[in-house]
């Protein structure tokens, strides 16, 4: 049984097609990257998996259960964690309280167990020393880490990472990819939308390319990046291999 399975997901906002019969599946511990030009429907696809928006047609199955009628909160509790492209910290709460909420609500942990889970996810993402700081005072890198920490505190089976490396320095990106690779080892599946292609290819073993709401390529990262379809839509038709930049 696949961990996550999408079947014929379609969505339009007015005349704009953001998803056109998207189908794919992945197993526990898989790491899949998603690339595509702006407006390809990457973030919308995440929103339909996490329950923030409802597809017009199609089904999402998680561990064999149909998710279509579950709210975003129920999906988080079921084991789907996500981060947002523009971090959404609870600014007036402490960093620790941000992950504590996720541990209490997303993982349904109680008492000391919730405290340990919340603090553990901060230590894991390198935020342990900032536990008592206001989340609104964090820098961009730490806000991105907090997004990840909050997703981890829900004890997810899969994490959806939306451009978590965007705007970070090379060193910061390397630190993040180390954390993300660690998740795979625990059987947590990772789906990662990223424009920083180098970070992706270091981490994932499968790459999907979206364009105009449709999957135009799916497979081994190097094969996908050098395919003609991807060059046409993603790299503007130039015969340039981003791995050689």
């Amino acid at each position, binding site marked *: 049984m696949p961990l996550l399975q999408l079947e014929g997901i379609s969505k339009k906002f007015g005349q704009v097609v953001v998803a056109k019969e998207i189908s794919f599946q992945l197993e526990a511990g898989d790491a899949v990257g998603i690339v595509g030009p702006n407006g390809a429907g990457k973030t919308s696809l995440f929103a339909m998996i*996490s329950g923030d928006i409802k597809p017009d047609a199609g089904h999402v199955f998680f561990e064999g259960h149909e998710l279509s009628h579950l709210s975003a909160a129920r999906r988080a509790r079921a084991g789907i964690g996500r981060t947002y492209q523009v971090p959404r910290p609870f600014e007036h709460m402490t960093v620790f309280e941000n992950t504590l909420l996720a541990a209490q609500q997303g993982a349904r942990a109680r008492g000391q167990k919730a405290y340990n889970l919340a603090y553990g996810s901060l230590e894991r993402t390198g935020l342990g020393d900032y536990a008592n700081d206001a989340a609104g005072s964090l820098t961009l890198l730490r806000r991105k880490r907090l997004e990840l920490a909050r997703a981890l505190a*829900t004890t997810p089976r899969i994490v959806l990472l939306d451009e978590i490396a965007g705007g970070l320095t090379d060193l910061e990106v390397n630190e993040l990819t180390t954390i993300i690779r660690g998740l795979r080892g625990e059987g947590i599946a990772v789906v990662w939308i990223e424009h920083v292609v180098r970070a992706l290819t270091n981490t994932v073993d499968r790459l999907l390319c979206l364009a105009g709401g449709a999957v135009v390529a799916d497979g081994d990262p190097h094969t996908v990046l050098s395919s003609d379809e991807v060059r046409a839509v993603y790299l503007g038709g130039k015969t340039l291999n981003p791995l050689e930049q």
Partner: protein
Amino acid sequence: MSKSTAPRTESLSNVSIRRSTHSPIFTVIGSLIIVVLLSVAPWIAPAQVASTLMNFFILVIMATMWNLLAGYAGMVSIGQQAFVGLGAYATLYFALKGVNPFVTIPLAALATAVIAVPVTFLLFRLRGGYFAIATWVVADTAMLIIGTIAVLGGGTGRLMPGLENLSPSQTAHYSYLATWIVALIVVIGTYLLLRSRLGLVLASIRDNEVAARSAGANVRSARRTVYIIAAAGCGAAGAVLAISQPFIQPTNEFSMQWAAEMLFVSMIGGLGTIEGPIIGSIIFFILQQSLQQQGVWYLIIFGVFAVAVALWQPKGLWGAFRSRFRSELLPVGHWVRTERLQTKTPEPLE
């Protein structure tokens, strides 16, 4: 759906958590002194002071409830007078049935909570400004319906029965105590609520609703719970209002003035803090007592003051104080205590 893998993100050793940055001893002692003083106030202070304090308590109850709604759950209601009025009329109704007016107070709170349940299904379809206007419509509709019921006095009103056997000073003392107890329950209850898991959910909704959902928080159910609690609190306020000013009239009990005062004191005191509405109510009463000789100027000064706070201290006076001195009278936070964090000065909460 159950998760088959155990969380591996859990910290190996137990994390030590404190709920307050300072020792709560001074807050506890201070609160006890205030509680004792206010409990005996009608016997040691002039009648005028006790009567002013009673109005102050009613305002604290209403503002605390409004702050839960708007400051925490993000629901700006301008129709909470609906529940003040329904609470007053529930008290009248039960008193007409022969129940002792003081016993009707919890019944009135329960009745308004029950009425609030179906109201949430109507109102929660709307957001923001539309929600606010709909709450006003609900309040006016409730007032018009109550005004058609002859046995409750119709549009002209009716005197609260059941208080005839008490002397005026007994009525004053008992209604003072009843109001004080309701205010105490509301403030302590709100404090315990905000310290609980639901309190953390409410704070997260206040900060970012979308992120709260994706962290697993059931936003709708938290909102519904808070709306019902706020209705019950305002219902209890209406009940004590009906006992302290026993001529019950729709235009008075369902007055827009209640909503305006709740909003005013929460805003000047500071939304999203427990202390804010209490501080706001104190300021409101100081202004009122010192300005009421000034006739119409009194309202103008109030208005100017509210605008000034909104422009220069949008977090309210308590909000400004708290972010400067990093202090809470009623702490609801979670502070991690580890050796490394002990020596580090945390970035202040806004």
